[in-house]
């Protein structure tokens, strides 16, 4: 018989590791789709990024003197690498993946004290750093070249693309919808006619268009997101608030001036909107805890995404928006707290008025 152990003596089924595994499972459809349309180079980049993340995590754990096995097995490093790779241009060279992994794991996570301690979403820290440091590589996208079709590079060619110092990628590069919109607006061309050249509703939904490895398929990302909601890994507050605020802003501005602002559907189906709403902004560590806090956080992300896309220099703003809101998370958590049982909103004990049992605070509202 063992000595006293603190209760409770029962535990629910879900563990940290299972949480991470479920998120990976949710990412799988969109990832497989990305790999199939961008081919072997995308596969190489994904592998390199995840392996580099795991190695970086292991080295950091050794330096920090933590048990490497237990912490590597929690799956968080794999997930960080995976999420980062999803947001990279699929034909980017190997060192983009490695640099990104190092930034994400070392600067984004371990420097703060490891899992659970980081203020910013590690994958987004890496993506923003890469975008600023290597703007060319980070904005060179390719049109879909599905695996096993004639136009697709075979495995050997893919090694040259990923590891060979880059083949003449300009030959195959193609603009993303948001990039195209930015360029056209820069040239003072009205949008309505030009947009139809690059954006097609069906492709936007299925994901058959140029873009980051795992962001393009709105349908499959949404599927994964709904799975996370169903398994209660995430709650609806952040995704719904974020999508709603983007839709609202895009709807209003598009109605006012269709030649300068694209409509809500373009915003929702292109770039990292859905991946951001379901997988990145909802990162448990860096988002607020309370439901109301999450709604504020999600809405803030949505507004910032729209503002950056419409008026800032970058065509895409999800990473910046999420990071900015990450910085506000401690503040939101400080001010937005639930009403405790037996207390009013201010934290004072509830007062009942005489026999009517009316709640004072409610009556006065």
């Amino acid at each position, binding site marked *: 018989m063992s000595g006293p152990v603190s209760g409770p*003596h029962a535990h629910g089924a879900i563990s940290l590791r299972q949480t991470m595994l479920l998120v990976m499972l949710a990412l799988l459809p969109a990832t497989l789709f990305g790999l199939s349309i961008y081919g072997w180079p995308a596969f190489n980049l994904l592998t390199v990024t995840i392996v580099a993340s795991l190695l970086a995590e292991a080295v950091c754990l050794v330096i920090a003197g933590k048990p490497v096995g237990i912490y590597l097995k929690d799956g968080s490093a794999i997930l960080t690498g995976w999420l980062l790779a999803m947001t990279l241009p699929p034909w980017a060279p190997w060192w983009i993946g490695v640099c990104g992994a190092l930034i994400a794991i070392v600067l984004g996570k371990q420097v703060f004290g490891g899992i659970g301690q980081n203020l910013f979403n590690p994958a987004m820290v890496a993506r923003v750093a890469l975008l600023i440091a290597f703007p060319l590589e980070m904005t060179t996208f390719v049109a879909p070249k599905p695996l096993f079709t004639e136009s697709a590079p075979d495995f050997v060619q893919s090694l040259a693309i990923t590891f060979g110092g880059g083949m003449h990628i300009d030959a195959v590069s193609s603009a993303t919808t948001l990039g195209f919109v930015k360029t056209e607006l820069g040239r003072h061309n009205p949008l309505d006619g030009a947009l139809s050249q690059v954006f097609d509703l069906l492709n936007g939904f299925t994901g058959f268009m140029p873009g980051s490895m795992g962001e393009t398929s709105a349908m499959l990302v949404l599927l994964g997101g709904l799975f996370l909601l169903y398994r209660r890994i995430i709650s609806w507050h952040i995704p719904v608030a974020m999508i709603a605020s983007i839709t609202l802003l895009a709807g209003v501005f598009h109605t006012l001036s269709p030649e300068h602002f694209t409509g809500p559907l373009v915003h929702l189906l292109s770039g990292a909107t859905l991946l951001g709403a379901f997988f990145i902004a909802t990162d448990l560590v860096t988002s607020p805890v309370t439901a109301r806090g999450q709604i504020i956080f999600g809405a803030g992300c949505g507004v910032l995404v729209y503002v950056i896309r419409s008026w800032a220099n970058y065509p895409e703003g999800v990473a910046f928006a999420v990071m900015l809101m990450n910085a506000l998370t401690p503040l939101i958590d400080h001010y937005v707290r*639930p009403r405790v049982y037996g207390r009013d909103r201010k934290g004072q004990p509830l007062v009942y008025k005489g026999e009517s049992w009316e709640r004072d605070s409610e009556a006065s509202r």
Partner: protein
Amino acid sequence: MTDADLFSTRRLWRFHGGVHPPQHKRESNDQPVLKAELPGRLTLPLHQHIGAPAEPIVEVGDLVLKGQRIAKAKGYVSAPLHAPTSGRIIDIGDYPVPHPSGLSAPCIVIEADGEDRWIDREPIADYLSLEPSELRNRIRDAGIVGLGGAGFPSYIKMNPGGGKVIETLILNGAECEPYITCDDALMRRQADEIIGGMNIVRHALQARECLIAIEDNKPEAIAAMRAAIEGMEGVEVVPVPTLYPEGGEKQLVKVLTGKEVPTDSLCASVGVVGTNVGTAAAVYHAVHHGTPLISRLVTITGDGVGRPRNLEVLIGTRMDELITSCLGDLAKIERIIMGGPMMGFSMSRADLPVIKTTNCVLALHRESAPTHTAMPCIRCGACADSCPINLLPQQIYWYSKFRDLERVQEYNLFDCIECGCCSYVCPSHIPLVHYFRYAKGDIWIKEREKEKADLARRRHDSRQARIEREKAEAAALRAQKRAALEASKAAAGAADTRKTEVEAAMKRAESRRQAAMDQAETQRQKAQARVRPDAAKDEVKEALKATKETPSAEQPPEQQAGNEEKDA
């Protein structure tokens, strides 16, 4: 019985959070209830309830009869103790008791003579003719405390005081903890006794209505209780949804009435009194049969016992004997828990006595009592979602880990009911409740130290004042004498004499005034230190605190949390 019968037309409210742990109730419910064998020796801790320990009124060597009072209540919040069987007192001293600290405490040990001979009992023929206060005294003298787990002396609950009107008496048969079925068994077997007890409590409180709350996973108990209240006015059996911790007093009040018990108040402040069904049955026996609380139903269950069941057990019976009688192999048992898996505590040894609050002895094998390595918090908020009080456990955890005792109170640590939902759902297996108990203990220790320091400072100040005053008095006396001397010396100079006399008189007056002021100050301080008028209320609060004050003897959470980030 169909599902429709479990449905109540009554409006129910919801409390925040809650969890659905596996129930494990069927195991112990399948077997009929038996009387446990009469043990050869009974160990009765003097402290089995919230409040002050009882005081022995017998001596070693005394012969006692079954039901004889052997220890009396000490103070307002306390309960007496009775001999569960006839026999001889063989020792009064410290023995290990079932308590989270694992420490020993004063006990009375009885060697049974095997005759089980009753003392003369005095049933009350017509309790309706008695004043509520007389009824309460009877219940107090019978040693009845809350049998649901907390052990709060019942007669105090029946005395809301302050002219409070009690609208609703809630009979708590929710029994939301997994594994435990003793209340279920009692409701199925002794529904009439429970209702009898309920009527007595209702009379004492003059409550307008009675609600009997039973979780809807107990259809047989619901049916039995409904049959027992057939034709009664203002009584209703209310099936409530199965959701842990539905049976928590505050949660049940919310579910049934929609009211929330204000922080720092008792249920009576919203016109509700709650009592466990087992307690009601004990009240019935005390009034109608004159039987004190000397036995109770205990669920012996878990995969550590071969035949889980409910037993009627004399208080003071050893738990290992009960486990063995239910075909449990002590050598294979990894963990023995008093209470349920959510709020119960594990014990360091098996030979501890059953006390008045022992509703369950849960014996678990290694497979069902796993220990997990705690991982870092990932701020997922699952704990906050599950908290029935709507606290933010991850924030409280964060601040208790770093001993920020002000912040933990700002996040309402003391509203935590330690139900264990947060630890249950935590994906990182952090023993959150353990941290919270530890932080509470820390704060209590600090508060007591502060009180001590304040007292010492007050003492020091008044001593200082006394010394000053004595000095002043001595000085005044000296001055007086000197003045008198000078006066007699200078008797010739009449003008001088007059002047000196005036001066001396002024000095005397001054010193008298000073002395009076000092005295007033000391009296004021004394009055402050003396018992305040609302002392009885304070005593209840103190007692509540004191019984919760266990964690200081426990391991610090860091040690138990194991590998969790020592360097964080």
